[in-house]
């Protein structure tokens, strides 16, 4: 059936039209690239025209003034530490939930599931007050604790669904051989959880990397600005200098595009996760 469809000319037309739709879909990204290479005087002269020469000085200026190296570093630290904590605590908790019988553990699971949907904005104010008293607003520790707490239900939810389907035979065999529970988890269960670890890394990693609202509240005005907030304040200061703004936009997009290319296969699976297969 697939083979016959391939030969039908109608199918070619459909796909080529869709390909053109796809090109239009990503057309907006053409502007940051083009404008960031335009000399300042040409930005508005003819907005649709290509630059007369490629002006890379925009990138140097944006890098200098926008503190982009610092923002990239901050975002990377926050994202990596948060995702590591989510994988470590999330997988351990999910494994426990999947193994323990009884109502209390059932309720614990429901607590995480509800947490996936329950909005967290209302809790940010008390958290902000508490963190302020503890002196951890404007610091890595504060935002990492917060992001880990916010994303934890999603991590446990994803892990538990998968942990429940792992056959127990492997664990039992290892147990008979005298391995401790932690060794069994570390060497048998955790490697089996790999697909869901990929999904957790992708979903929560991108959410944390792109986060703006909490970062604005908890890190605004500090030295630990992540990309989203750094970009926001940079645009606030240079609203009309689109050549500079777009140089920083392009820089801020490069890591995500590279990550996408590296994790391409897992990426789409990770985002489609949750569907029964």
């Amino acid at each position, binding site marked *: *059936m*697939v083979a016959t*469809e*391939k030969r039908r000319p109608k*199918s070619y037309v459909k*796909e080529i039209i*869709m*390909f053109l*739709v796809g090109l239009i879909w*990503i057309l*907006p*990204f053409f502007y*940051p690239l083009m404008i960031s290479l335009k000399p300042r005087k040409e930005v508005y002269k003819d*907005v*649709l025209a290509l630059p007369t020469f490629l002006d890379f000085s925009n990138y140097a200026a944006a890098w200098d003034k926008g503190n982009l190296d610092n923002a990239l570093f901050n975002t990377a630290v926050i994202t990596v530490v948060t995702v590591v904590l989510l994988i470590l*605590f999330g997988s*351990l*908790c999910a494994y*426990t939930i999947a*193994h323990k*019988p009884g109502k209390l553990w059932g309720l*614990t699971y429901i*607590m*995480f599931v509800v*947490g996936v*949907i*329950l*909005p*967290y*904005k*209302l*809790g*940010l*104010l*008390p958290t902000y007050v508490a963190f302020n008293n503890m002196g951890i607003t404007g610091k890595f520790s504060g935002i990492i*604790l917060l992001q880990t*707490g*916010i994303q*934890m239900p999603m991590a446990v939810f994803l892990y538990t669904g998968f942990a*429940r*389907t792992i056959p*127990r035979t492997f664990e*039992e065999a290892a147990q008979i051989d005298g391995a401790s*529970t932690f060794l069994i988890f570390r060497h048998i269960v955790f490697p089996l959880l790999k697909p869901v670890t990929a999904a957790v890394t992708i979903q929560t990693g991108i959410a944390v990397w*792109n986060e*703006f609202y909490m970062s604005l*509240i908890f890190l605004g005005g500090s030295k630990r600005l992540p*990309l*989203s907030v750094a970009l926001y304040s940079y645009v606030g200061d240079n609203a009309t200098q689109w050549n500079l*703004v*777009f140089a920083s*936009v392009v820089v*801020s*997009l490069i890591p995500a595009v590279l990550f*996408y290319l590296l994790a391409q296969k897992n990426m*789409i699976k990770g*985002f*489609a996760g949750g*569907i*029964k297969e």
Partner: protein
Amino acid sequence: MKPLSSGKQLAHKAGAGGLYIPWYWAAPAILFALSIRYITVIAGGWYAFTDWNGISLRANYIGLANFIKVFSQPIGKQPMITTLKYALCIILFSNLIGIIFACLLDRGMRLRFVTRVMIFIPVILLPMAVSYTWKFIFQYKGPLNGVLQSLGILDKGITWLAHPTLSFWAIVAVVVWRWAGRCMIIYLAGLQNISDDVREAAIIDGASPLQQFFSITFPLLAPSMTITFTLTLTAGLNIFDEVMALTAGGPAGLTESMATQIYTQTYVYGNFGYGAALSLILTVFVTAAALIQLQTLRRREREMS
């Protein structure tokens, strides 16, 4: 789901055999979730009934005064209506476009994989960066007016982001553009579950493509729909980044969402009590809508399958 429950029974038997997992393995995750996602939310709910400004030592209980203020002033009501409109439009258009793209890119040549990537890429990119790109496109002297004018569709440029109604639609367009790819991916995963036999049978029976879609594809996409509707609903009601980047709530507060209003009232003006009341209303909206939607969609899933 049947093999899962029998597997669970097996597990119980094996568990009785004695693989003992200490309870405290689960403790850090539970602590994180309970403290950040539950206890602080309850504490925030308390602030909503006080006059706290964040500076004074005492928060006085003032009953429903904050809520009355929200519902009696246009500055409180307007963002609520706008947010509901955002959510509705975002759910509708993201899913519509997502389903159409998924169906058109499901089977066929290799080219479709490239197309899928192009449609998916906005999903993962920094929303702030993407929003600024769109802000430029919508500028008076920007490319959108440029193209429309050179094609002769417009005589004069439009100030899209300062227009009382078009600014709303500009924001909706940007959010839908970002979410349609995510919906598409989830629908594509759902389409994998529809076997070729069923389709072939329908084709032999002489069903038109449209009939095939409504009698086979659409019902079988019910589980995907449960996920995409819940995702786009929460995204729509919590809309913040795009509004801040594109219009900052303007013109005259017409594109202000509940989330931007909460941010301004609480963290810019320091009206903690008022901001908490707004947050509590938003929390109730999202939770109620999500629960009702999940119930309806799950029931639909059961009926359809």
